[in-house]
């Protein structure tokens, strides 16, 4: 009985750390983006302020039950993804609930929040929400193929679907990282990673300029606050996942932060350098070069 409570405690701790790290990451990255664009940009702690502001709003409206519980789906998706993953390799406690399922669980569970969110957004009745979801789902199908190929290549390489074991196999120096030992799979995954993070050139889902913030259009106040919590946790969880798959995982929080920050920078650099794709363009792009790399990665493992 005690272990369960301790586990819960550590889970909460994990969530807390990752949440704050995610918010920090958001602020810093936006700052960097602004500086690259010769603007001053926000203050690095702006994300915290936004959340507090949203929770403090007095007017709260709902469009219906699905709309109301959608943030719960969304945040459950984010937290679940985080907790089903071994965050810090080698520590039993920060592996949280990773003993309940393997890589495949993560792969499919990430859609839990997406789907619930999409439903809530759709009940809002705003056409932009539905439009955003439609674009998002379409894009997901495209990069998911590359992602799957990369993951299969890695799973074949290590003959396991358990993330813990995948990380374990990469211990002992950079030379053992998957990105070095299996570069094709690494490249495929890192290309898929770009769209998974939803940054430019694959940010038409949210499309900040022309359809104000896509699926969450209708959300506000406390509900938006929940979404914002997720927006910190979910990308961070994904970063940890990619770190675990490709970059040897992390044995302590410091390594984790450095590694994930650098991984994130990859998508940030690409984002500031390349303009946005339309959905059909990004789909075609993913179904060409990344797909070929993914297929090569898999074929390479097969023969």
């Amino acid at each position, binding site marked *: 009985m005690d272990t369960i409570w301790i586990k819960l405690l550590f889970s909460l701790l994990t969530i807390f750390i990752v949440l704050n790290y995610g918010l920090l990451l958001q602020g810093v990255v936006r700052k960097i983006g602004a500086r690259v664009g010769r603007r001053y940009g926000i203050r690095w702690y702006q994300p915290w302020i936004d959340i507090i502001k949203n929770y403090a709003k007095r007017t709260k409206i709902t*469009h219906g039950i699905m709309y109301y519980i959608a943030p719960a789906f969304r945040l459950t998706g984010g937290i679940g993804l985080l907790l089903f993953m071994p965050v810090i390799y080698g520590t039993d406690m920060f592996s949280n609930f990773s003993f309940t399922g393997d890589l495949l669980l993560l792969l499919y569970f990430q859609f839990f929040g997406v789907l619930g969110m999409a439903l809530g957004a759709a009940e809002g009745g705003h056409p932009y929400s539905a439009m955003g979801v439609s674009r998002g789902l379409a894009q997901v199908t495209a990069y998911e193929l590359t992602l799957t190929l990369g993951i299969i290549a890695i799973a074949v390489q290590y003959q396991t679907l358990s993330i813990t074991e995948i990380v374990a196999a990469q211990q002992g120096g950079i030379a053992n990282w998957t990105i070095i030992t299996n570069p094709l799979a690494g490249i495929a995954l890192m290309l898929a990673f770009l769209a998974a993070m939803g940054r430019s050139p694959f940010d038409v889902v949210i499309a900040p300029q022309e359809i104000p913030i896509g699926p969450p259009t209708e959300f506000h106040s406390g509900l938006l606050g929940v979404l914002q919590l997720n927006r910190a946790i979910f990308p961070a969880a994904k970063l940890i996942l990619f770190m675990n798959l490709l970059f040897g995982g992390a044995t302590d929080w410091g390594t984790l932060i450095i590694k994930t920050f650098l991984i994130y920078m990859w998508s940030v650099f690409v984002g500031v350098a390349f303009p946005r794709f339309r959905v059909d363009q990004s789909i075609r792009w993913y179904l060409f070069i990344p797909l070929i790399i993914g297929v090569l990665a898999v074929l390479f493992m097969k023969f």
Partner: protein
Amino acid sequence: MVTPIYIIVALLGVAFALGFSGQKQIKAAGTLALGALAFSLFVSLEWLIGLYTETYKSTQIFTAGVNPPFSINLFMGTGEALFTTLINFIGLFGGLYLFNKLIKKGRSTFIALLMLIMGLNVVVMTRDMFNLFVFLEISSVATAGLIILNQNKKSLAAGFKYIIATGIIAGILLIGIIFMYRFTGSLNIDDIPTGNLLMIKGFGTAIFLILTSILLELKPFPANGWGLDVYQGTHAGISVFISAASGTALLYVLYKFIPLMSPSFAFALSLVGGLTFIASNLLGLKQTHPNRLLGYSSIGQIGLVVLVIGLAPYLGDKFEYIAIALLGTHVFAKAGLFWISGIIQKDNIRKWTILRKNKLLTILFGVFMLALLGFPPFPSFFGKWELITELAGNGFISWMVIILLGSFLEAVYLFRWLGYILKLEAAKKELQPISWNKYLPIIISAILLIASGFGMSYLHEHAKFINYIPLIVAAAFILIDRLPVFIKNTLAIASVGLWYYMMYPDLEEFRLIFATIFLVGGIITLLAGYAYKGKRQGFYPMALIMFAGLGGLIEAKTTLEFFFAWELMTIGSYFLIIRGKKSISHALSYMLFSLGGAYAILAAFGLATVNNTGISLDILANLNIYAPAIFILLAIGFMTKTASLGLHIWLPGAHAEAETDVSPMVSAILLKAGLFGLIVMMIKMGDQMIFGLSISYFLGWLGVFTAIIGNLMAALQEDAKRLLAYSSIGVLGYALFGLALMSHLGWLGATSIAITHFMFKTTLFLAIGGVVWRLKTKNMYQMGGLIKKMPFSFISVLISIIVLAGIPPLTGFAGKWLFFNAIMEKGWYLQGALISFAGVIAFLYCFRLIHSVFLGQLKDEHRNVKEAPFWILLPQYIILGVLIIFSAFPNSLLKPIGEFITPYLPNGALVWDGQMAYSLYGYWNGELIMYAVVGIFVAVLLWIIFWNRKIKKVKQFDIVYAAERPFLPETTHYAYNFFAHYKKAVGILAQPMISNFWEGVSEIGHSVSDKIRRIYNGSGQAYLIHIIGFIVIIFLFTFGGF
């Protein structure tokens, strides 16, 4: 015991006597004539029964007090008794049917009828060749007289062509006979030396001329234009005599001559028969005149029997069984159809909608049609089965192809016709009242057809074990069709339930799983039937026939029982599908694909008997020849039901247009029959290699592409039910892929997908069906916002799509997880990635479905919509409950299935530790995941509730809309062409290439048909040229000119 000579005496005597009757006593005279016919029927029937029960002995009847060959002798054996019975049956009931008409035209018509039937009786019985000629001529003259019963330019022209054609043919027969006499000194068939005598100069010619002229009388392709014109030109009641009586008699003559045939002539005979069968059915494709169409069918059927006669030496002791089954069906069915046509009297099959005003006649029409096409339980089913089996045993693959192809072509036009009758815009006029003497022959024919079907099956060494009870129960529902739905539904559920209960103790492994899907699933979907009001006529018999077939598949021990059940299921589901709206083309293509598949299965089962003993399903396990071919044929057959890519085009329309509770039956349940077949096949046969490549490897790829294309098409539909239909194609693609993996985990995945697909597709079709029920539209963009009106349906759809999409924590994830592990094990990485790609595409249509229907903007006209009826919701919630249990406790579902699979595929089984499943690569605990997810969700939800205590509900249009106010739900609901961008990117995959392909095939078939039938240019002289050309060609063929 009455000597058969009295048949002649009675018919001839009455015919003479009628000459003395005046027009005033015409009714009495007619009755007398019918009496004579009845007497003949009695005599021949008495002989038939006597000979069959062996109380009588076959008898020679001598005339003129001198022995043959100096006098004419008749012979009465079993064959003669049977054939004269058939002829006299047609004579009596054909006369009864035409009674009023004949009376109107006067006594001479009765005389002609009597002479025709007498002539045919003698033709069957006589052993003397000249006598044969004389009575053939008598019946020809009588026929020519009857043809102009309705005197008009059409019947006159047809009759004249008939006379000149039969005149020439008879002349040739006569020449043959006189030559025969010249060389043998006898006119008696029994005196003529048998054996391969065709090569003896002169004598051979004589035999050739006799045989060819008899063959010509049977209207072989292409020398049969005169026959077709008669069918079209004369009264349908007369066509009955020509098709059913004359054809029967002449076939018997041909049969009598079998001993005289040389192998080369027998081969020519079977070629001509086969060609006639295929060609006339091909030409029927373009035909719209009902009587001419029946003529084509009739000529085709007789061609088939000619083919069988030609192959007689190879068919061994099965020959008579086959020939009688095929011919008997032809006689009763064709007579019935012509008789119905005589009542309808429309010159285009599109105008036959008037028939459906009369339920009884419609049912009878269906009976005759199904019988013609060799569906169970009619005699031709068993005949065709035996024929194919025997042909396979002889290695006659091309004959099998010819027969199956011809049957298929026949099915095309007959089912098209049936579709027109059942579904085309109804005619305004009512049918004229029909007198009893027209009904009676038709009804008796149908009864005899069914009875002879049971008889044939009783005579068959294997067919007698077929369980007919479910079919009989289903048929009994026709009798109570007038009762209200509530009673019938209860009875239907009770009977299906009882059957499952009785079957249950014998069920094991896959049979248990699929029996549960078929029958328990059937009960659950039948529950929705309570939502219907009124009588719902015609639904229950057909639904139960389908379930009888499905259950029969489970019970089947032999290939015959399996095929029998398969065909039953096809019939039942066809009629269920055609009940839908706009279903004509979809039901037809469903039937054609099913039939094509069924014929592939039939051919495979036939081939499986080669070098094997018995027909138990186990023979599939020890094939020593043709194994890859059998595997492929069976796979094709089963994949027509699982709607794999290439064979899927029937599905979307058929499922989408079906009624609310029929859609789940034909989608969630029926498709599993194909999977069951595949599983049975793979268990017995394992994998097979062709050219050194594994066939299952191809099946795997096929499954992958089916899944991708099915899901992609689903995402691009506007019609909600069509979306679900395409989704079924996709999901069945996964299942096919899983089976093709041929590994423990692959099968576990496939089976669990089969089970979950049954569950979520039932709920989805019922939920969406409930929406359509209320909204009267299937277009999703016309819906929207219904969550507020139909919350229960919404929840049902929500849970179903989460399962469908395979998102944890619900049970759909199990399938995804198993597949990933299976492909890792098998090394099919590319296929695996593509399958999971297909899975992601499924998200597209899942979201589209739930968004466009339930979310977004509620339309003004739907503001008063009510929740779906209780009885439609109930089955959904029963299933949802089970789904949740399976999700939380996956081992309750997967562990038993794994145990079923282990005996066949032991390697790589899951290791269970409580609810924790371990594979070689990964692990997964459904229960803990469920707790974790629910725990997090509840925590977050409480957090939300805590922070939003004072949340206010707003109206539909209170949304943040850039600088303006939305004013119409229609313009605000983003639903139409939802994935326009996706279409732009990958739409090239969604082109209807396969539909185009099949349409092209159909187009080519029809064009060829139209081109070839131009040889029948209507000129009697051209027909004569055909006849002479035919003789020359057959001559050259038989005597080695080629």
